[in-house]
């Protein structure tokens, strides 16, 4: 098949960028769900992160501080969710949906004075000439710092679940909060930390949109990416590497279909535009189709409220 003017190297480099917001948000949500909490407010936390990061980056001139503020802003949102669901035992699904609506509203309020402003440029990394190497240069050595952070996050989360005591406790809390509680572990403490981590990651993902990909503040700019992140966590059967696969697959097919159109390849556009959703779901369903393991993959206490007296 002739791919015309598409350059595969540029394609891979840009798919990594396009996938990063979803990957960041999904890694955060993976941590939250592993601790047994379902936070449907990813979209709301992302967009609050996007505007918090944007405001601080514009005011200070530093994209790095912007990302810090994005993580902080979204964490505040996440902690609000944590207090409501963990302390006051409100329904997690309803509270998460509320968080999304609240986030969309509060972000457009915060962004009132920031429409139409250009944020400070956030440069890509340069590695002493390595960035000019053919093929690997643009893909490996010339990305935005947050792309490396997101990849490090995948490795870190995987290692955390697999090899650390604290990761084991978090998984125990997610599987059976009564048992973990009986053993003397702090269910609330663990879940608060996980929810805060999830918020910070979602915030970074949002700021990556408003500071790097777009880069501009527009209301509602996350346009459903938080929901995609949620879906990817489920289809990835709660495994870190599969989340990476799912996010890159989704971002990759999205970028590929746009490139195929730009190159004028004669494939029906209807097929191309639904392909990201179809292919991502298909691949993840196939790799998680082993019934014996699939049943065990969802955290057993996911979405169930916990109170120490029960």
């Amino acid at each position, binding site marked *: 098949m002739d791919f015309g003017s598409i350059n595969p190297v540029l394609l891979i480099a840009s798919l990594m960028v396009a996938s990063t917001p979803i990957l960041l948000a999904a890694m955060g949500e993976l941590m939250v769900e592993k601790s047994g909490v379902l936070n449907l407010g990813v979209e709301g936390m992302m967009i609050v992160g996007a505007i918090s990061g944007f405001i601080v980056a514009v005011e200070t001139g530093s994209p790095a501080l912007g990302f810090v503020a994005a993580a902080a802003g979204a964490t505040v949102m996440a902690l609000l969710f944590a207090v409501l669901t963990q302390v006051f035992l409100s329904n997690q699904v309803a509270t998460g949906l509320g968080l999304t609506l609240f986030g969309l509203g509060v972000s457009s309020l915060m962004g009132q004075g920031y429409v*139409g402003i250009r944020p400070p440029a956030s440069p890509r990394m340069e590695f002493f000439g390595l960035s000019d190497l053919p093929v690997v240069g643009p893909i490996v050595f010339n990305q935005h710092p947050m792309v490396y952070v997101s990849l490090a996050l995948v490795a870190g989360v995987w290692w955390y679940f697999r090899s650390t005591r604290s990761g084991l406790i978090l998984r125990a809390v997610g599987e059976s909060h009564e048992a973990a509680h009986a053993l003397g572990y702090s269910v609330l403490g663990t879940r608060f930390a996980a929810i805060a981590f999830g918020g910070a990651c979602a915030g970074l993902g949002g700021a990556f949109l408003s500071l790097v*990909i*777009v880069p*501009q503040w*527009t209301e509602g*700019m996350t*346009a459903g990416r938080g929901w995609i992140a949620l879906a990817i966590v489920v289809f990835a059967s709660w495994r870190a590497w599969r989340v990476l696969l799912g996010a890159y697959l989704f971002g990759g097919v999205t970028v590929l279909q746009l490139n195929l159109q*730009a190159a*004028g390849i004669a494939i029906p556009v209807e097929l191309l535009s639904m392909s990201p959703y179809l292919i991502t779901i298909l691949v993840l369903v196939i790799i998680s189709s082993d019934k014996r393991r699939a049943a065990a993959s969802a955290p057993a206490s996911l979405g169930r409220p916990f109170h120490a007296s029960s």
Partner: protein
Amino acid sequence: MKKRTFLAATLAATMATGAFADGHEPVKVGFIYVGPIGDGGWTYEHHQGLLAVEAEFGDKVETVYQENVPEGADAERALTQMALQGADIIFTTSFGYMDPTINVAQKFPDVKFEHATGYKRADNVSTYSARFYEGRAVQGHIAGRMTKTNKIGYIASFPIPEVIRGINSTYIHAKKANPDVEMNVIWVYTWFDPAKEADAAKALIDNGIDVVLQHTDSTAPQAAAAEAGVISFGQASDMAEYKPAPRVSSIIDNWGPYYIQRVRAVMDGSWESVDTWDGIGPGMVEIGEITDAVPADVKAEAEALRDSIAAGEYSPFTGPLNKQDGSAWLAEGEVADDGTLAGMGFYVEGITGEIPN
């Protein structure tokens, strides 16, 4: 049964308050927006129209609006709610609200509806649109003259006549200005998704395109064009923050005068169902400043083209023109009629790719 009685009662109550509103209360004007008013493009300009209505009539009007209303069934709910709240006239500002507007208008015969860019009318439903394709002709000319790679790219939203007209008009005039020009179209199936629009712009640029045109509502493609050093055009709104480059010109929708005229018609009782389709001449479409990034001779040509369209001397769809499959459409000197334009579902000769169904 109960449900139906309740509905009937609500309807009766609404009509009662509606009648009451005619005499004493301010005229209530409603707007349904497809995006957020901060999109910097399409919805932003409709909201400017709302503000113009408020400035014109002061406390004689009361305005309400709802942002981010999805096209389709949910729009019907939003419209019904607005009608039940006592709106006297409701502007529905996106193509996808066409059927919901007609459906809700049947249930509220005393409320006036105005649907933008559609073609279905009723006794209490008017349609209005702007001849954006006139502006596209000017952009196409600049694009054809400015491209160095002879490849220009177009980010399209949905395959509806309005968008297809814009693509055709752009291509015809780019080709006239530069016979070697090629145009690639990307369909993104959204009016507003900044990240996807940015990705689409990047995909075009990665494929060697150096002029980006857009028929989507956000400024994200402008930012992508700025980063890559190619040129672009403001869409729906001036997008002046990207002057002088990448944004070298723009199409500005100016809805304020129309909205004021229609609200006044409701006030003095002269409102009738009409179909309005105005272009550069009456001022509904404006061409934003052509910046110095464009050479002076190109700018002069573009302005001459704009002025001849405004004066009614030239129509962007003037023959000889063939359809994409090579069959004849317009003979030498023949001008396309509004009926064909309103339902345009084909590319003109020379554009590659197919229109999705």
